[in-house]
């Protein structure tokens, strides 16, 4: 049995304005499959659930169609809808106990549909209801209680039993696990699994990403009434294509990532529009933003254009004006003018030699907009070289560099300054990277001067102060006039970060920004970088030798050894189960364990072999002669002939 939602739009009419809850939603629920709808509050998910059952209030304007098994449901025919309800499609609403009538016993409420829809006798209906409820673990005693006498988990089970009592073909679950214990979660998961095996279709509305990924086939991301992305569940954590999906995943406390929560900057729009005798089929008039409880407006939503643009990490001007529709990219469907998360920086086969010494072997590196990428490795691994090539400071021998879609080399030749504006660099030693002759103000304002943006004294003062407050430094005159030797290292590094940010770059490159700091200060600066990344929507390339540090801050990690990348992939996967022995070594050292897969050996290695072969305990002959290529394994790239794949 399949449920098909085709371009559904729902508008709630208030007195003088209307609120758009859903806009042109199209979803397919196929039999035996579960679709998860993920959205935060205000996204319209409950409206969607209610629409399927025809339970929207009278002031709702509905367009589009919903079809069950290919036949369109006519929501104006109350009798036929009532027949359809519960029998072919049922729902478990959120908020548990509120959905049960407090003056009737739960067994009566579970049996009720059997009595009044199937005309069974009361005794018979009660028997069937009791049996169903016992399958959910509710014994005879509990069945006869009133809703307020039961716990949250018991109520949820009763609601599930009630929803399944007429054996519907489509089951909608609205936040079935929020606030509930693990046992109930398991029960819900079992219900989904059993239903799938019986070829039912399930719509799972949830904000529990883990649960969604483990129990559904497809995931649809709902934001402010529009679908932003549809993707296979397995791709949610590690390869989302829409900036919103990525940002939401980052906001989610998962067990296997240790990256601190990010959140999404800004506030969502409130989509209302003024009604001026709007009839069905009329084009939407101008859309206002209105926060009904606040006096100020939170910004104007464009009548066309992307509704996520004010919070997106890669928004450009056309995002504000161009209409945007769902397009198919691979096995995802993405609503983004820029076709999903763009690569901000793309390096292909860049290499660097200093005379005979190979600092960097031909390497590919991609940094996506809005992500934090960490390059981890020992000294001499080539990570700084790679970072500096990415910054445009070093020129590679070969290879191509593309920044924001444009060839970097050409760009550098024609107009280096405009490229420099896009990238901010924070160096390792703040005391050395800031001239000791400059005051704080001078240091931070230097980029403005260089780029000729220093015309207006007032403006630039404002800018400097603004950026200093971003890094939580004082903005009064006395501080602005301080010299580097008067500040401690933590403050100095912050000045250096402020300097890197003053031109609003889209990429921040930080080369070991905390190695020369005390641990307590290190923590604060790292936290600052993370907050900035969320607030300003920056992409970051972070260079460090400490994989533990990288774990705390990155979305993706690239492990470098002797001038090449040996493993690249999502941070959670790499830390959780590394495939390259070297990565494992780094992790073990960070934990203070003696390294598992290595033994000390000479560093010099045959140029054609695997760079780790000298130290690797799993080394075989082939490792010494053939440098393993980076191959895709277990959702990341690793260069090893005998990777650590869990058997």
């Amino acid at each position, binding site marked *: 049995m399949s449920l098909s939602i085709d371009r559904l739009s729902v508008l709630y009419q208030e007195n003088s304005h209307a609120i758009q809850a859903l806009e042109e939603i199209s979803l397919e629920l196929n039999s035996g499959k579960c679709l998860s709808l993920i959205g935060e509050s205000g996204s319209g998910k409950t409206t969607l659930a209610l629409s399927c059952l025809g339970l929207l209030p009278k002031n709702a304007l509905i367009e589009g169609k919903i079809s069950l098994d290919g036949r369109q449901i006519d929501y104006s025919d109350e009798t036929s809808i009532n027949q359809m*309800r519960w029998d072919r499609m049922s729902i478990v609403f959120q908020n548990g106990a509120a959905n049960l009538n407090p003056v009737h016993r739960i067994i009566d409420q579970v049996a009720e549909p059997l009595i009044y829809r199937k005309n069974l006798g009361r005794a018979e209906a009660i028997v069937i209801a009791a049996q169903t409820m016992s399958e959910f673990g509710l014994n005879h005693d509990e069945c006869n209680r009133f809703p307020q006498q039961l716990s949250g988990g018991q109520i949820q089970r009763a609601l599930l039993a009630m929803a399944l009592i007429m054996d519907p073909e489509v089951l909608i679950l609205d936040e079935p696990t929020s606030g509930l214990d693990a046992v109930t979660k398991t029960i819900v998961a079992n219900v989904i699994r059993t239903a799938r095996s019986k070829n039912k279709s399930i719509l799972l509305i949830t904000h529990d990403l883990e649960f969604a990924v483990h129990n559904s086939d497809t995931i649809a991301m709902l934001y402010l009434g529009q679908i932003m992305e549809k993707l296979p569940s397995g791709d949610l954590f590690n390869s989302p294509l829409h900036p919103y999906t990525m940002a939401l995943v980052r906001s989610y406390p998962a067990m296997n990532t240790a990256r601190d929560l990010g959140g999404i900057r800004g506030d969502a729009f409130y989509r209302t529009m003024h009604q001026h005798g709007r009839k069905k089929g009329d084009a939407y008039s101008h859309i206002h933003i209105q926060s009904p409880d606040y006096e100020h407006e939170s910004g104007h939503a464009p009548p066309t254009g992307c509704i996520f643009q004010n919070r997106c990490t890669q928004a450009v001007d056309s995002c504000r004006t161009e209409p945007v529709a769902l397009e198919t990219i691979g096995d995802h469907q993405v609503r983004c003018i820029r076709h999903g998360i763009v690569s901000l920086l793309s390096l292909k086969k860049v290499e660097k030699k200093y005379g005979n010494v190979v600092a960097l072997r031909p390497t590919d590196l991609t940094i996506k907009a809005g992500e934090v990428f960490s390059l981890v490795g020992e000294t001499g691994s080539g990570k700084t070289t790679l970072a500096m090539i990415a910054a445009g400071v070093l020129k590679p021998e070969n290879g191509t560099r593309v920044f924001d879609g444009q060839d970097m080399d050409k760009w550098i030749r024609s107009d280096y300054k405009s490229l420099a504006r896009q990238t901010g660099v924070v160096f390792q030693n703040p005391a050395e990277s800031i001239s000791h002759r400059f005051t704080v103000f001078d240091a931070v304002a230097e980029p403005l001067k260089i780029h000729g943006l220093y015309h207006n004294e007032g403006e630039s003062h404002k800018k400097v102060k603004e950026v200093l407050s971003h890094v939580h430094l004082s903005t009064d005159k006395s501080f602005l006039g301080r010299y580097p030797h008067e500040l401690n290292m933590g403050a100095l590094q912050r000045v250096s970060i402020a300097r890197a940010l003053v031109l609003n770059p889209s990429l921040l490159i930080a080369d070991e920004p905390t190695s020369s700091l005390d641990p307590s200060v290190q923590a604060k600066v790292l936290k600052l970088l993370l907050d900035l990344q969320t607030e300003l929507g920056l992409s970051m390339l972070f260079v460090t030798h400490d994989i533990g540090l990288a774990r705390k801050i990155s979305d993706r990690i690239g492990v470098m050894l002797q001038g090449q990348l040996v493993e690249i992939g999502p941070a959670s996967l790499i830390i959780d189960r590394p495939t390259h022995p070297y990565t494992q070594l780094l992790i073990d050292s960070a934990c203070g364990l003696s390294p598992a897969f290595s033994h000390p050996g000479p560093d010099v290695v045959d140029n054609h072999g695997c760079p780790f072969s000298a130290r690797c305990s799993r080394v075989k002959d082939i490792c010494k002669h053939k440098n393993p290529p980076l191959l895709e394994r277990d959702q990341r790239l690793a260069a090893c002939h005998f990777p650590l794949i869990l058997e």
Partner: protein
Amino acid sequence: MIDRITHSAPRWLGMVIAFGLTALVMIYLSYLLPRLLPGDFVTSMYSSSQVTLTAEQETELRAYYTEEPGFYRYLARLAGLDWGYSYAFLTPVSTLFFSALPWTLLLLGTAHIVSMFIGFVVGVETAWRRNSRLEKGMVSFMTILEGVPEISTGVILLVLFALHLEWFPAAGANTAYAELSSCAWLIDIGHHLVLPLATLVIAYFPGNFLLARNSMVTVIKQAYITTARAKGLPARRVRYAHGARNALLPLVTRFGLRLAFMITGALVVERIFSYPGLGTLLFNAIKARDLPVIQSVALISSLMVLAIILGLEIIYRIIDPRVEYAH
């Protein structure tokens, strides 16, 4: 410790005790009060009325009020329906009381039942049609009607239908001295009942309607109503078994609270239509300054109200499981 005592006993026990105490206090007061009045109130008691007492009657009366039978004997007498003697009407008070009681019960009882039932059903149905013209009109109309006191309605109905149009009799509960067969007798009673009944129903109905409607409006917004609709249950079941059933509860509570004040209206209506119920009895006794009657009617009817309220509390506990089973 007080907490433990109050928590362990069954809830209704506290209520029964409270009401029992109240009853006793009221009876005691009615026993006590006359004995507190200045000595020769007996003389002045009937003085401003048209009743004159013979010396013999006066002594009897004085003896009745100054004797000290003790509270327990007073209670016993009350229970034994010995409520004194009325010198204005020259009959024992209990006789007067029981000849008037059935009429009042008939009038008040029917009025309350009819207005509650109609008010509830109309209120529930109107609330279901929220924001329609019907609903808005009904609410406005009922609000205005609520402001019209029983006196006004009664007098208007009396003058219009009884005096001008002469469709209904203007006084009495039945035609006096008429020898009617039982069927005709019932019709006659009904005929006399219409106007006072109409007055009371018009007076009680708006309050019940508005209460039912407001309560229902709150209930309709609840999540379990959406669930009931989602279950595809027939509309009537949703409206009554789920909606009205829950809307009923505040109605029952507030009804008890209003009961004590509704008696006033009943008194006035009986007087307007000269309906021979307790109200008229009381009124005449007041005019005649006949203390024994006034005292007894006041006391007994208060006790009856007390009993009714106690009954309502028990009913409320039965229909709302949240009270019994609250954690």
